[in-house]
């Protein structure tokens, strides 16, 4: 897994590439957690899943964990470029109750 973090105003965009599972989710939690802690001005989180090849329940848990921080800041979590097999996992897991799927990065960035 590889993460690319880009901040733009109050929005943090995270491009997730590769596999998000038991072995990579600790790094995912730490990297994004550190960024959110060091930068209290971040209110919204956008995940870009275009390059994400695999996610399982360990990965979904890691995504949900980041939501909790954002919720405390009254922010929004959204996902863009979600491949079909991930849409189904997001649905089944109930993650879509707290994370919206946006049609494009431009659309998602309007939260700022």
């Amino acid at each position, binding site marked *: 897994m590889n993460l690319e973090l880009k901040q733009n105003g109050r929005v943090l965009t995270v491009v997730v590439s590769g*596999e998000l*599972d*038991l*072995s990579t989710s600790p790094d995912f939690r730490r990297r994004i957690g550190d960024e959110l802690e060091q930068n209290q001005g971040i209110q919204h989180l956008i995940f870009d899943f275009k390059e994400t090849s*695999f996610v*399982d*329940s*360990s990965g*979904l*848990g890691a995504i*949900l*964990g980041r939501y909790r921080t954002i919720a405390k800041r009254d922010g929004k979590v959204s996902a863009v470029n979600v491949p*079909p*097999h991930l849409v189904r*996992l997001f649905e*089944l*897991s109930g993650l879509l109750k707290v994370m919206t799927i946006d049609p494009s990065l431009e659309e998602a960035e309007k939260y700022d």
Partner: protein
Amino acid sequence: MKENYLLITFPSIPENVGLARVIVASFAAQLDFTLNELEEIRVATSEAVSNCVIHAYREQSGEIQLELKIQDETLSIKVIDGGCGISDLDLAKTAAYSTDPERMGLGLVFMESFMDQMTIESQLNQGTQVLMVKKPERSKDSNDDGQ
């Protein structure tokens, strides 16, 4: 090719979860699964093997066995650990139930919904054995004797 099998043993470290996915997916590709079905098999495998790493052996490291079989155009995956076991199987299968507050309690739910069949046998302090079975949809349409 009609029948095949693959027996695998490896230590319960997180790095091997991805390896298990690759192995199972390559083995499963000998049947007529769609890409979507292979994806479901990858998730189910990932959940079963992750459970051995996290729950069965916790901080210690133990061994995980994978027994893969192709028979009658059907894939079966057995995931075996010699770990702590599960005290209440029905509770464990409940959606959102987890003994770990950091986790979602969805592993067994995914395994059940992504495979045709999923059964667990477990004995406390002896270990757990999960059997998952799946047949390609495309092979279900055709006669049972294959082609």
